[in-house]
């Protein structure tokens, strides 16, 4: 009886020690990769956040809506800042244990300043962008085939340090929706903090062009204009375009889609790599 008890006790102790050693070995390996993974995640988010700050645009996705807050035109040379930021990351942020670089979709290193000045909403390939990083014009573009994903666009414009001269928004020409043609629900309001004017037209035929008359500011030669829909046969992708002249504005664009399955990113990849893991995603 004593012998049996000894045997059982020995077996249990042996089993306990083996299990303990096995768990500890796994834990040590996992801890290193956990620390590395967290480091990659933090680095990626920090670099991404810094870059978004330089473009001076904030984006937020909530359910069906993508909200983009923007300011036009750019007060600083965004292209130069992006170039300097890329250098700064190379020289001061990355270290021998972690590699941080900007790439294109083929994995080739790119200079951040050469990134195209637009955000792409995928998978619909609808773009929100500017004529250049100077941001003198804003455009929302997309192929006719993908326009069905957009339920509505709500654009709120605010004049900065200026007041609105107009008392209403007049469309000339105005093209209302027609049967069997792509139709956009578009809500436009323009404010200067004191006065707000709202478009009374809310449905637009995208196969034909509509545009507002110039919306002037009271102080001197400055105005903005909004175009909706196809405007030239050479450029059949225009949905909305804002043109500016000597005027600073901030905009809040809310694009409501008919699905939650979308995301928006810049056309450059940020790759953060260590020996254990990597995070390679579009900005």
């Amino acid at each position, binding site marked *: 009886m004593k*012998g049996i008890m*000894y*045997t059982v*006790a*020995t077996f249990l*102790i*042996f089993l*306990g*020690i083996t299990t*303990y*050693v096995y768990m*500890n070995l796994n*834990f*040590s390996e996992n*801890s290193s990769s*956990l*620390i590395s993974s*967290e*480091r990659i995640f*933090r680095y990626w*988010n*920090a*670099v991404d*956040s*810094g*870059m978004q*700050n*330089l*473009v*001076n645009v904030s984006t937020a996705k909530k359910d069906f809506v993508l909200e983009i807050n923007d300011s036009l035109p750019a*007060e*600083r040379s965004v292209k*130069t*800042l992006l170039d*300097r*930021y890329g*250098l*700064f*990351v190379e*020289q*001061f*942020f990355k270290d021998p244990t972690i590699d941080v670089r900007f790439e294109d979709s083929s994995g080739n290193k790119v200079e951040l300043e050469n990134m195209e000045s637009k955000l792409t909403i995928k998978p619909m390939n609808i773009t929100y962008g500017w004529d250049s990083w100077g941001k003198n014009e804003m455009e929302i573009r997309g192929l006719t085939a993908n326009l069905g994903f957009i339920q509505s666009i709500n654009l709120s414009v605010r004049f900065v340090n200026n007041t609105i001269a107009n008392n209403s928004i007049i469309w000339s020409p105005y093209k209302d929706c027609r049967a069997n043609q792509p139709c956009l629900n578009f809500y436009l309001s323009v404010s200067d903090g004191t006065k707000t004017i709202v478009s009374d037209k809310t449905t637009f035929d995208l196969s034909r062009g509509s545009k507002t008359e110039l919306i002037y500011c009271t102080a001197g030669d400055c105005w903005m204009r909004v175009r909706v829909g196809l405007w030239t046969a050479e450029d059949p992708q225009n949905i909305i375009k804002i043109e500016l002249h000597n005027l600073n504005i901030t905009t809040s664009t809310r694009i409501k889609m008919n699905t939650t399955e979308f995301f928006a990113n810049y056309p450059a990849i940020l790759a953060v790599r260590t020996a254990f893991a990597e995070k390679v995603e579009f900005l």
Partner: protein
Amino acid sequence: MEIIKRKKGKEKFFSFPRVSFLLKKRKAFVITLDVFVAVLIAIAMGLVITNMLSLRMNDKLASNAIANDMLAVLHKKGEFNSYIGMQQQQVETKLLENLNLLPAQYCGNFSITVYDANDFSKRENFQAVNCEKQGDISRVKRIFSDYSKEKFGIAELEVWLK
């Protein structure tokens, strides 16, 4: 006569040289169960002592997480950007206040370097420490940028157990 013969036969058997040698020179090593249990207990005690390593790894994970969380929260709040253009003493006071928000068993060394975006040689350094460094130190850092002031910055935080 017969008895004598039998005796002789016995003697003959025991006088066979090889077997006789083995029986005289035999040795054995017997592992009793008591010894085996004792060895296992000794190994268990050794493992308990070496368990200190895994406890330290746990601490490392925890202090890394705390440091990363602090930097992330301060960054998202816009704290780092607000320091740009402030007086040195003001910034360092704020850094010390942030260090005092760490859990009671932790100390830290918080440093921020702000660079001019157009000339990296132009930089400002701010630093605060709230106790002497000791033991395992976790180091994390975060990059930030300011569009309107055209500045880039690195915030570094070292954290250790008191």
